[in-house]
């Protein structure tokens, strides 16, 4: 299964992101707030972990709509095994 990881510079941003994404009630979106995996150092320590088919654009739109900054988006293939790979985002 594919996993996505959204990392933040600030705990407050991570917590605000969690509550705003929950509030947006995006369909079939499964995610949990987790301590950032050790491999990723650029983070406050909290990340959002998304499982399966995720419309990351939609998620990032929710954050943008509420002026919540994030530090990076990562992706990996198999659960628990493959290393996290940064996802290049096009700036608007």
């Amino acid at each position, binding site marked *: 299964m594919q996993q996505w990881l959204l990392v933040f510079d600030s705990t407050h941003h991570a*917590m605000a992101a969690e509550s705003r994404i929950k509030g947006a009630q995006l369909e079939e979106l499964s995610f949990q*707030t*987790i*301590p950032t995996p050790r491999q990723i150092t650029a983070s406050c320590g*909290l990340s959002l972990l998304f499982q399966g088919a995720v419309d990351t654009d939609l998620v990032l739109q929710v954050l943008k709509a509420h002026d919540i900054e994030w530090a990076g988006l990562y992706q990996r293939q198999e659960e*628990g095994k493959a290393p996290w790979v940064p996802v290049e985002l096009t700036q608007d």
Partner: protein
Amino acid sequence: MNKEVDARGLNCPIPVIQTKKALESLKEGSVRAIVDNETAKENVSKLAKSMDYRYTVSETRGDFYIDIFKEVKYREMKIMDLEMDPVPKSDLVVMISKDYMGEGSQELGRILMKGYLYTLTEVAPMPRALIFINSGVKLTCAGSESLNNLRKMEENGVEVISCGTCLDYFNLKSLLMVGGISNMYNIVEHLNKAGNTLQI
């Protein structure tokens, strides 16, 4: 030699204590415990499990019959099973006494607790048991965001135990979603037997 313990109409933890006494008085043989409610059935079954005895449960007209077999042979089989366990477990028993981690901010504490339970699933060895007391029981009940992580640990052999008195106090008994219900006797036994305990 076989014994029968009729614990119908008796409240927790008396059925468990009587069954335990009967088992202890036997060298080999079986004990049939008869109880009339779900909680007592669960607790007596758990007792058998914790003592490594094979047991069967049957229900007749609202009464539960739990037959517990005290056999030497089964204990040996159980040791083999443990050796083949794919995920090694430490001798750590973690008691989670609230639904948030640390003091200062409960909002942050709830996030930390979710993160702690997630991380427990990622780091080997897993603890032997997780005991949830007081508002900690909210984590094992409907609405908790940690249910999947707790289920994952349970699948890997971690015992997940919620305090029955606490579930009752918060009116959550019917909403328990993962693990079993236990009483203070069982909790004390777990803590006393543990090589290492941690209270959060």
